């Protein structure tokens, strides 16, 4: 009796110690990952508030002596030629990404629904064909697509980008949404149809609201993909006033190679919209993955 009373707390202590070992390992690991992730971004911000002269010093100023926002002012000033270009690139990116996002939701939702609900011949083949799109790198499609876009009269238009971006956003969008629809009981729709709704009404009134997280996740994914795309924009667009942000920034700074504060400020500004969008809506994204694609 006494032995049990003695060993029990000792065992408990040992178990707590072992769990603590794992917990501390996890904490140290997370701290390391935090540094790895955050330090480059912090250094970007610190550089962006230095002057061009202060940035080019060795050893570097760990904290800027005279922090100032002149790089940002230059980029955002519509009177300045740099600012004009930057704001125009920003606007172009916004237009292209928004159009891509809206179109991919419109195209992906019915496709994913059909792949989930209907059993038509060739369904699996088509589904895999769609998924296979993501296997192929952009470079393979560049030349033929460029020729195709020329035939369609879309070279140097944002339409060429929207059409191309659609295709690489679609596979994951369809796959994500299909997982979502798979998990919505058919009985809900059947009940609605017994109550007199058409298939379309049942889809709009029952299925769509339930799949909102999936649709939001799809939209974020398309938007971020389009916002950050570089190769097609680099190849399809040649007119300066049509460039999107990644290409515009690259082109600008291949001429001004030493303006690192400006480059860091531009990188920061380019990241703000997608980061904010993602942080605001990220729970939908994780939820869509959990309830849709990853669930088994």
């Amino acid at each position: 009796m006494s032995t049990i009373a003695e060993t029990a707390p000792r065992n408990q202590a040992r178990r707590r110690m072992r769990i603590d070992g794992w917990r501390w390992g996890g904490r140290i690991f997370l701290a390391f990952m935090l540094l790895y992730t955050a330090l480059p971004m912090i250094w970007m911000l610190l550089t962006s508030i230095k002057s061009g002269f202060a940035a080019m010093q060795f050893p570097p100023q760990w904290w800027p002596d005279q922090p100032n926002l002149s790089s940002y002012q230059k980029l955002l000033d519509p009177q300045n030629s740099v600012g004009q270009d930057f704001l125009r690139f920003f606007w172009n990116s916004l237009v292209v990404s928004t159009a891509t996002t809206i179109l991919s939701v419109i195209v992906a939702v019915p496709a994913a629904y059909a792949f989930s609900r209907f059993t038509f011949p060739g369904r699996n083949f088509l589904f895999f064909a769609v998924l296979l799109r993501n296997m192929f790198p952009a470079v393979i499609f560049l030349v033929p697509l460029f020729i195709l876009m020329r035939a369609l009269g879309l070279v140097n238009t944002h339409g060429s980008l929207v059409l191309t971006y659609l295709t690489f956003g679609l596979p994951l969008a369809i796959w994500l949404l299909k997982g979502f629809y798979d998990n919505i009981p058919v009985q809900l729709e059947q009940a609605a149809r017994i109550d007199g709704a058409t298939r379309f009404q049942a889809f709009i009134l029952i299925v769509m609201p339930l799949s909102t997280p999936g649709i939001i996740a799809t939209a974020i994914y398309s938007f971020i993909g389009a916002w950050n795309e570089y190769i097609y924009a680099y190849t399809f667009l040649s007119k300066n006033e049509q460039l999107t942000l990644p290409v515009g920034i690259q082109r600008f700074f291949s001429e001004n190679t030493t303006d690192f504060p400006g480059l860091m400020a531009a990188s920061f500004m380019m990241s703000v919209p997608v980061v904010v969008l993602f942080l605001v809506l990220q729970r939908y994204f994780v939820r869509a993955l959990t309830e849709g694609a990853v669930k088994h």
Partner: protein
Amino acid sequence: MTIVTGKAEARRRLRSARSGVLRKVWKHRADYAYVLPAIAVMLIVIAYPIYYTIELSFFNTPPGLQLRDKTFVGIDNYTAILTSQVFWRVTLNTMIWTVASTFISFVLGFAAALALHRDFIGRGILRAILIIPWVISAVAASYIWKWIYHSDFGVIGAVLVGLGLADRPPNFIDSVSTVLPSLIVVNIWREFPFAMIMMMAGLQTIPDQLLRAAKVDGANAWQRFWHVTFPHLRNVSTVTILLLAVANFNSFIIPWIMTGGGPSNASHIWITHIYELAFGRQRWGVASAYSVLLFLILMTLGYFYVRALSGNERKDGSA
């Protein structure tokens, strides 16, 4: 007699089966309307380019000339590629790049997901910060790291000198031996959050009861992970690893912006090399032949990819 009727019977059955497919297609004609937009876009942007690339791979396209001045050269482009030294160098780079990036991103992402699975103060903020690199543009990431690696004013070099670990700032991306690992670090920085999100989603699907039951039965943390958590995540892990592998195999922006493949091809991977052949040296035929080889490799990978992605569904179908 019996044989004849048997044959006729078989033929009739075949015919009815064929018309059965057609009838089925007809019966489901409305269903196709839902997938038609997706398929149409895909066909335009995929099927045609694939056909065109295969055709072009058998032609020689002299630089500076119009594409229609191409001449047929048979499989010369392929033999030229396979016998060139650059090809093997680039292939080795691609393998190192893909395997290292995929494996390390996955392990870091998985570990971060496990560490973040337990509730603690500031978990949401920490998770959000860790995801940011995945969201920002690869172009921005390339410039940030290019600046960090800068051979004169780079912050890493300055830290190393400050700590007395180096006499002068090392040349991270201008030296043949360090350029590829340096770029892989950047790539992992951008990719591990994806693995983390996927594994976080996977972890949430594990029923709590299972882990609690294992704990009651006396399993320690490692045993619970190895016998309960990990088997549950096999499917998600496969999908994540394959998606990462495909993305890494196809990556372009980071090596292209940071080094352009240099110095002396040390950071060229397949995609940047193809791009340079096509748009830099205008050797479209060779570049297309490269692309076709790439297709073949990707189709092999794609077989596993599709099997992994459809794995969930097949299980549902049998259940």
